[in-house]
C-alpha cells in the first residue's frame, strides 16, 4: 500500500480495501496460535493518542501492535488538549520529537487526524474523529460481512439508528459504496437525514422496510450520554420504533447478519435475545478488529512481505 495515513475510507480505493482485508485474513491465524506474536514490526514505535474514552478500540490496537512486536505507548488525554492548556499541535510536536513511526488517534473533532497527517512525517491512523469517520471499524465490519457473504458487490446493508452523527456509519457508507454494496439507512428524522443519500445509498425511515431487503443489518449505538438537545423523545420510544428485537427480526431473511459496533445498550437498539442470538456476529466483529488493525499497521509501516512468518 502506497499511502502514509489512513484517515478515512472516503478516498480509499476498492483495490486498497481488498488488500487490507486480504492481509487481515492472513493475520487472523496469528491470534489463534499459542505464541501470539510475530517479529514483523520489531523496533517500530506505535503511539495511541486518545482524546476520547475507548475500551474496545484501544485494546484492539494495543494487541495488534503487540502481536506484531511493535513497541506501543498509550497516551490517554481524557479531556481535550485545549482544556489542558496544550494545543493538539504542541502535543503532536512533542510526540514527533520522540520519533514515533505511527500515531493512532481518537479525537472528538472531525479533521483532527488530518491536521496531524498534514503536518508530520509519522503515519496516522484515525481511530475515530468526531462524527466524521472511524475507518478501522468499517474495515472490520466489511471483513466480517465478507466472511459470511463473499464479495460485497450487490449485497444490501441496512444501517439503523443515529446515522447522521455516527462515524461508524459514515465510514461504512463510504467503504461499502466503494465495494459496490447497496446501503439502506433508517432512523428517526433527527438522526437520518436526506442529504446522506447518494449513488448506492438510500434513506428510509422505517426499520421494517429496510429489514426485508437486508443481507446485513447494522444497528448503531444510541449515545445517550451525548445526545444534543431534543434529538429523541425517550429511549422507550426509540426502542419501540427502531430497536431490533426478535419480532422485528422475523421480517428479515433468516440468513441476515446482525452487527453492532459496541458497546450495546441492551434493550434500546438491540434486545438481549437478538444481541446474543444466532444471527449476531458481534463477537466476530471484535475478533476481526485485531486482524484488521494488524494488517493496517503492517501495510502502513511497510513490514516485510513475509507477513505472518
Amino acid at each position, binding site marked *: 500500500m502506497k499511502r502514509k495515513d489512513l484517515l478515512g475510507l*472516503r478516498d480509499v480505493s476498492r483495490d486498497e480495501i481488498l488488500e487490507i482485508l486480504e492481509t487481515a485474513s492472513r493475520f487472523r491465524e496469528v491470534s489463534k496460535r499459542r505464541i501470539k506474536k510475530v517479529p514483523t514490526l520489531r523496533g517500530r514505535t506505535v503511539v495511541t493518542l486518545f482524546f476520547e474514552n475507548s475500551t474496545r478500540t484501544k485494546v484492539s490496537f494495543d494487541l495488534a501492535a503487540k502481536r506484531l512486536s511493535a513497541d506501543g505507548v498509550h497516551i490517554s488525554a481524557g479531556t*481535550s488538549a*485545549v482544556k489542558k492548556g496544550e*494545543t*493538539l*499541535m504542541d502535543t503532536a510536536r512533542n510526540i514527533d520529537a520522540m520519533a514515533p513511526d505511527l500515531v493512532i488517534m481518537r*479525537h*472528538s*473533532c*472531525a*479533521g*483532527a487526524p*488530518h*491536521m496531524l497527517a*498534514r503536518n508530520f512525517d509519522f503515519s496516522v491512523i484515525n481511530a475515530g*474523529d*468526531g*462524527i*466524521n*469517520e472511524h475507518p478501522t471499524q468499517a474495515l472490520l465490519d466489511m471483513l466480517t460481512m465478507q466472511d459470511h457473504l463473499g464479495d460485497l458487490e450487490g449485497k444490501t446493508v441496512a444501517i439503523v439508528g443515529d446515522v*447522521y452523527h455516527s*462515524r461508524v456509519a*459514515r465510514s461504512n457508507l463510504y467503504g461499502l459504496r466503494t465495494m459496490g454494496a447497496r446501503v439502506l439507512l433508517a432512523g428517526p428524522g433527527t438522526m437520518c*437525514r436526506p*442529504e*446522506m443519500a447518494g449513488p448506492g445509498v438510500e434513506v428510509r425511515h422505517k426499520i421494517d422496510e429496510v429489514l426485508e431487503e437486508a443481507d446485513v443489518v447494522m444497528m448503531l449505538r444510541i449515545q445517550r450520554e451525548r445526545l*444534543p438537545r431534543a434529538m429523541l423523545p425517550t429511549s422507550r420510544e426509540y426502542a419501540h420504533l427502531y430497536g431490533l428485537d426478535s419480532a422485528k427480526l422475523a421480517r428479515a431473511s433468516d440468513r441476515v447478519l446482525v452487527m453492532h459496533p459496541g458497546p450495546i445498550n441492551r434493550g434500546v437498539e438491540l434486545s438481549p435475545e437478538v444481541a446474543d442470538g444466532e444471527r449476531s456476529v458481534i463477537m466476530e466483529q471484535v475478533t476481526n478488529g485485531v486482524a484488521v488493525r494488524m494488517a493496517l499497521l503492517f501495510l502502513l509501516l511497510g513490514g516485510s512481505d513475509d507477513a505472518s512468518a
Partner: protein
Amino acid sequence: MTLQLKGGRLLCTATGVDRMGDLWVHQGRVRLSAPEGVQAQVIDCTGKVVTPALVDLDARLCDPGYTWRESLSTGGEAALRGGFTCVVANPETDPVTDDPSFVREVIARAGLESKVEIKVAAALTKGLGGEKLSELGLMAEAGAALFSNADHLVSDSLVLRNALLYARPLGLPVMLRAGDAELESVAVMNEGASSALAGLRGIPAAAEEIGIARLIALARYTGTHVHVLGVSTKLAIAQLKAGLASGAPISGSTTALHCLLNDGEVLASGYDTDTRLMPPLRTEEDRLALLEALADGTLLGVSSAHAPLTRVDKELEFAYATPGALGLETALSCLLSCAPLEHALRALSAGPAKLLGIERSLRDGAPAELLVLDPEAKWTVDPTQFASRSANTPLAGRQLSGVLAAVIHKGECLHPA
C-alpha cells in the same frame, strides 16, 4: 502635487462614466480638465482602469486590545494595498467600542497611525452582549459613522426593536448579521451535503433566513435603516429582494470570500481552519445567487469581513478554531476573479460609499480617492507578503486577478509609496 492620470479607461460605477481619457488630481480633487498653470506629474495609465477607490464596511482592526493580530497602522496599510482608502472599523475591540471615549480614541489614533481613513462602527449594545443599549447618542456625537453589533446576534427581539427605535432619530444605519443563536450553536460549517460528507456539524441556511426575516420585519416596523452584513444564502437574497421591493429600509452586503468560495473548500483543504468563517462558506448554488445579486443590485455591496487571527486562534482542531479570515488585501481580487469588473467596483466602492454618505466618483470636483487598476493581471496570494500582522487566508497559493498600479488617497499617490 498635481497628478495627470494619462490614457486610462475612466470607469465610475457611481456616475456611469466609462470612457477612455485623462484625469487630473489637483488640490485633493478630481479634475476632468488640466488645471492651468501647474506642472502635473504624469502617471501612465495605458491599458489600465482609473476608478474610485474602495470603501470597506466591516473590518476588524483589533485595536485596541488585540494588537498582536492587527493594529490601526497595519490594518491601514493592508487596506491601502487592497485599494481601500476608507475602512469602517468593527467594534469588536477590547474594550468593545461601546463608549463615546473609545470612539473618540479610535478616531484620533487612526488619524495619526493609519495611512487611510478609518471610520468607527460603534457597538449597538453594551459589550456587544445584546442586552443593554450603548450610549448611541453620545457615540454619534463622538463621530461614530454607524452602529453595529459585529458578529454577535441580538437575540432578544425587544432589545433589538428598542435599539432600532432609539437609533432612528440619530440618523445612522445599524449593521447586523442575520442568524439564529440556537441553530448556530455547536455547528462549524454550512449544513448540507458538504457537512454530511465532512462529518462536521452544520449551520443550516435556515438560521440566516430566520434571522434576515426578523431584521427586515423590525427595520420596516421601526423605520431605521438596517444593513445586513454577510448575507450568504440564496433564500436570504430572495428575502432581501422582497424586503427592498416592499420599501423596507433595508440593505445588505456579502463578503468577498463568499463570492469566490463554496463549502466544498472545507473538505478539499483537509479541514484547513482558515476555511472556517462566520457565516460559513455556503453551497455553490448560494454562491451563484450572491453573484447574481451583485449583478442586479439586490446586494448593496461586498465587505472584506477582514478578521485577522494568528496561529494561536487557528492552529487548532476545526471545531475549536476561531472563525474568520483576512480580507482587505484580497477582497478586490476575489471579486475580479469571479465577477465582472463593473459589479466588483460597484460592490466595493459606490455601494458602501452610499451607505456611509461619502462620495466615491469621477465627477469633476469629487474627492481624489482613486485607483489605477490592471483588472486582468494575475498574482499569487502569499500571506507572508501581506501588510497585515496576521496570515489567515484560505487563498494562500491561489492565483487571483487584479493588480493595483496606484492608490490615491486625499490627492496623494500612497501606493506604491
